[in-house]
């Protein structure tokens, strides 16, 4: 059974919501009553339930199986956290109701901040950014504000390693920085000498992902940070891979000035098919004064939420990132995860994540090719497509064939610095038995690929809700919404 679109199965005269009709009244809409058509189909509740249940069954989630998407940290999402986020005391409070009626919410934000600061060793945290890229934007604005405050507004260049997430250069460019790329050295990490060579009075910051997107810890990070600081620039660290080092190193000790933290990665708020996330930014002493509003300030009278730029406690604030206080729903979930794990569990989690990634790499080294394997991997295992040479099978084909084995594919073609990259991040949530099953499926595929069983790969996936989809066609003449088909001219019936 194929599932139609709501526009095909619903009707505008149907509704799945009962709403009592108000007593007659005089409206205050003036001349502004809607006259435009409103072609919104309705579904009765049973129809809606079935439609979305069926759609869900065409999806794959962590609860369906291993989700080894490198750089995305798809870990278990505890349902306790969902339950906590739905407590009326968190879900049913308004961002603008009197602060005296939300003291528990402020305490929760303060407690979350305390945990983030303890885990990073940083000085301040801005909770409001709504996702990782938004956090980057916030951190880079803080850097720009700090330079401006120091009278160094001329600094207009940001250094970004080749292997960086695309958000890094996009963020820097968004606020007018020129992006200068830093090549990686042969072992997959950034050469401090290359950074030094690129630094100068025009450089505002270095943006570095650490552990980097090749799954390696930037072992010269301290030297790099020193060089950056010596040149009068700031060190922005992309925290997307924080899961590898949680409780193992405090990033403040590495010389980081700003780092965003993806609560939806490291702290397990669910990805929900693409969001919502949350991207709090931790800041060093140098950048702390520039945190945006609203900001939570501890005073003698308790916690105060400073909502306005320029007012006491926010004299140098960089401005406002969004309308309200940030992703409260995610804060609750993340804190719930942190309290559940505790200091011991969080450290264990990162150790298990790293252990699992290294195990994956160790078990596949003989059948696939792993660049930079002379160094321990962090939380993800990187492979390239050298081992596929001559088979006529590509990284993408491997990914699609993995779907037929019942798995979500790994990240492919990222990082760009490696040819035909396959990036596998198992996270700490998998049992050894689950890893072994996955590894055996992947080994089996690798053997089959080398043995030249091309049909298994080129036509994959065979067993998914859809065969391979034509992305080119979608992009060439984009169909981005449903439009009622023209009735056939002879459609008498």
């Amino acid at each position, binding site marked *: 059974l194929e599932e139609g*679109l709501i*526009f095909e199965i619903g*009707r505008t*005269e*149907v*509704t799945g*919501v009962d*709403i009592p009709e108000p007593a007659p009244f005089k*409206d205050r*809409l003036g001349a*502004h*009553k809607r006259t435009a058509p409103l072609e919104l189909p*309705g*579904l009765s*509740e049973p129809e*809606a339930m079935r439609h*979305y249940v069926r*759609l869900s069954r065409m999806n794959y989630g962590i609860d369906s199986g291993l989700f080894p998407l490198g750089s995305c940290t798809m870990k278990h999402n505890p349902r306790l956290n969902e339950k906590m986020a739905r407590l*009326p005391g*968190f879900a*049913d409070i*308004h961002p603008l*109701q*009197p602060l005296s009626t939300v003291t528990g919410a402020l305490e929760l934000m303060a407690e979350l901040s305390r945990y983030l600061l303890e885990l990073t060793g940083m000085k301040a945290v801005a909770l409001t950014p709504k*996702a990782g890229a*938004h956090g980057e934007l916030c951190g880079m*604005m803080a850097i720009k504000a700090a330079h401006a405050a120091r009278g160094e507004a001329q600094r207009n260049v940001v250094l970004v390693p080749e292997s960086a997430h*695309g958000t890094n*250069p*996009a963020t820097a*460019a*968004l606020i007018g920085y020129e992006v200068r790329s830093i090549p990686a050295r042969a072992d997959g990490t950034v050469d401090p000498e290359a950074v030094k060579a690129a630094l100068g009075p025009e450089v505002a910051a270095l943006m570095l992902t650490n552990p980097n997107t090749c799954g390696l810890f930037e072992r010269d*990070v301290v030297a790099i940070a020193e060089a950056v600081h010596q040149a009068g620039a700031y060190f922005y660290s992309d925290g997307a891979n924080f899961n590898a080092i949680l*409780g*193992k190193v*405090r990033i403040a000790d590495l010389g980081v000035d700003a780092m965003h933290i993806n609560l939806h990665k490291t702290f397990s708020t669910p990805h*929900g*098919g693409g969001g*919502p996330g949350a991207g709090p930014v931790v800041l060093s002493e140098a950048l702390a004064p520039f945190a945006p509003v609203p900001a939570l300030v501890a005073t003698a009278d308790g916690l105060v939420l400073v909502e*306005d*730029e320029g007012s006491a406690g926010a004299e140098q604030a960089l*401005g*406002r*990132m*969004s*309308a309200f206080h940030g992703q409260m729903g995610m804060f*609750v979930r993340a804190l719930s995860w942190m309290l*559940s794990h*505790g*200091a*011991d569990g969080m*450290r264990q989690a990162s150790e298990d994540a*790293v252990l699992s990634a290294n195990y994956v790499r160790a078990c596949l080294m003989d059948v696939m090719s792993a660049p930079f394997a002379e160094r321990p991997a962090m939380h993800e295992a990187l492979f390239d497509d050298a081992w596929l040479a001559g088979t006529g099978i590509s990284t993408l084909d491997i990914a699609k064939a993995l779907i037929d084995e019942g798995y979500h594919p790994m990240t492919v073609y990222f990082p760009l610095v490696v040819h035909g990259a396959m990036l596998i991040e198992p996270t700490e949530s998998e*049992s*050894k038995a*689950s890893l072994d099953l996955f590894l055996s499926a992947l080994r089996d595929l690798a053997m089959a690929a080398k043995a030249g069983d091309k049909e298994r790969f080129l036509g994959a996936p065979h067993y998914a809700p859809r065969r*391979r989809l034509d992305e080119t066609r979608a*992009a060439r003449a984009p169909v981005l*919404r*449903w439009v009622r088909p023209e009735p056939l001219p002879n459609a008498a019936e």
Partner: protein
Amino acid sequence: MRYLPLTPDDRAEMLARIGVPSVDDLFADIPAAQREHELPRLPLHKSEMEVERALSRLAAKNVPAGSVPFFVGAGAYRHHVPASVDHLIQRSEFLTSYTPYQPEIAQGTLQYLFEFQTQVAELTGMEVANASMYDGSTAAAEAVLMAHRVTKRRKALLAGNLHPHYRATIETVSRYAADDVVALAPVPTGGEDIIAAIDAGCSCVVVQSPDVFGNIVDLKPIAEAAHKAGALLIAVFTEAVSLGLIEPPGAQGADIVAGEGQSIGNALNFGGPYVGLFATRQKFVRQMPGRLAGETVDAEGRRGFVLTLSTREQHIRREKATSNICTNSGLCALAFTIHMSLLGKTGLTRLARANHAAACDLADRLAAVPGASVLNDTFFNEFTLRVPDKATDVVEKLAARGILGGVPYSRLAPKAGLDDLILVAATETTTQDDRAAFAAALKEVL
């Protein structure tokens, strides 16, 4: 630890396979001087019951909207969300999935995003919509950036009655991007003359309707004036339900619509997560920020959906991307689209009517309280009340009487010199008793 499946035996076997003696060896690349050998100075792991107790204690310190007569709006609105919505968004396959990069096993997400895009376009009266933004305010800021790209100009003109937090969000990003912003002064009674401020340097005019004071704005003449000057009209709304009853911006000439979708399907959540709605004209689609789901076919010719036009996006174009956005509000968009599917035209119209009726009744009751006056000629479910005292004091006094009576405008814009105004909202969730209690309490307080 209940979330960690590996046992000590597993770990030992895995280390042996890797060929290192201890897990610490895997962290050898972290400089020894910086590596932490102690646990963080935080409490140890807790049972589910203990965590639940700790968080419930915090939650209990807050006053939930549902527990009192509640009239707070100003950008976020309390509506009844059908139980089926929350049930469905918690389906594992929705909740625990990722951005649909592998479309063959993500048709569920992609199809609902396609449905969502169509609904948003239809609701706003626009041609196309994206798959959601973080929230209304960031959507508005992205709309300004997009207008700059389309017009190749860099000055935004903001209506004085734009929500002050939206204004601040736009101003912040503009400041760092070195773009210009001209923001007019607020006119609580409505009818501000923004057309006079439009000039040939403007990339866009940003107008909210209903505006922050609740007034419904006639966008048509503004659109005409903007277009004449070569600028785009960006229409903003914070209450999506209003579009069930009032003329949508698309029918009035808007070029980009940026709005908050929280009202449909989503809880108040103390400000987030919400869902930004973003719609525009077909011709601007390649300048649009954010994800897009598009229709295509699979190898067997069956209809299917994929993320498309990703060449605009950061993970492909890096510093040349139209936006740095990566995460969207997928699950909130799902809640929106489910609730909207349940409503349909019929339900949305009824819902909007119930809201408007409640607000009209409340306005009449409050206007009858000596000393208080309602400023609006027109409104949907929110209006502005002028009080003889400081609005913040009045709201605090009402709260002390168990009534959450609205938002002092001065809280949103402390420097505007408008200290006697309260933004008051009523939705279908307010009862007649609630409204009577508010009026009675206001009488006591004034």
